[in-house]
């Protein structure tokens, strides 16, 4: 927990989206931001996460309404596709803007 004074020095830090700020979730969001959609295996490969780790972060992002998860069967095998929702895309852009602002406001 940062000290109160630190937060006052960096007023925009409070606006940073904590759901996206976690590195693993940031990686998922960044990978989905640059494409239209991807399956679970593709994200595992691109982020280097394990199945359990990715599943857990995927659920958190889904709960936040940032990603849409579509489960179906391809050749009788379960297949999970993920894509950013409109809310997720906006949140990622907003996160990027907030982070830039945080660093712009750093005292010299």
């Amino acid at each position, binding site marked *: 927990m940062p000290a109160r004074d630190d937060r006052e020095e960096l007023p925009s830090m409070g606006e940073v989206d904590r759901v996206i700020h976690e590195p*693993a979730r940031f990686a998922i969001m960044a990978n989905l931001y640059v*494409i239209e959609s991807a399956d679970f*295996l593709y994200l595992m490969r*691109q982020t280097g996460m394990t*199945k359990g780790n990715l599943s857990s972060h995927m659920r958190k992002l889904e709960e936040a309404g940032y990603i849409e998860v579509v489960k179906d069967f391809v050749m009788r*095998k379960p297949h*999970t596709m993920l894509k950013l929702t409109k809310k997720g895309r906006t949140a990622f852009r907003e996160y990027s803007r907030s982070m830039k602002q945080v660093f712009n406001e750093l005292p010299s």
Partner: protein
Amino acid sequence: MTQNIDMKDLEKKAWTSYFQDGLLDIAMGMIMLAAVLSSTLDAIGVSDEVRIAIYIPLMVVVPPIIVILGKRHITIPRLGVAKFGPHRKARNRIMIAGLVSLQLILLAMLILQGVYGVGAGWLGSIIVTLNILAAFCLIAYLLDYRRMYVIGILFAMSEPVMFYLKNYSDTVYRGFIAYGIPAVIVMVMGFIMLQRFVQKYEKPTKETSDAS
């Protein structure tokens, strides 16, 4: 895991990861091998009809089958599936339009050559070479597929080499020299890429390939 991410670079890496399997290189090599076969059949005196009936299917049917089956059974089970955005779709459309235009130019030249005898000899060979080079550069640039520049140079060079051997040499191995050498280089490149790809991305088990 690094937070230092360049978004354009990330998209490009995601896109190019699908070309790291070497399948397109192998398919391109197959096209060249079909040209070797055609040239060999020509050299041993097989009629044009029979020659075309043999090498055109090998040139047109086999390479796409290699790519489609390879993607389905090797690449996608190891790398997964990603759908790319409108930016990539637009680039693909430009590429197709460019390739069709280049083919039309080539067709016009062949008609002029056949009917009026314009553009025969070295001039025709240079036009074909430049056309092939332009087509491969277009693909390489718009697909962000750098190896395609090398493949394009190898393909394009085969045309003047063949022209030279046909007119100034009586070797029966002209097809092997002009098309066979580049075909082997491209295919070896493709197989090395494929081997590296398979080593890098092991096929996941049923339990580890999808969300729990």
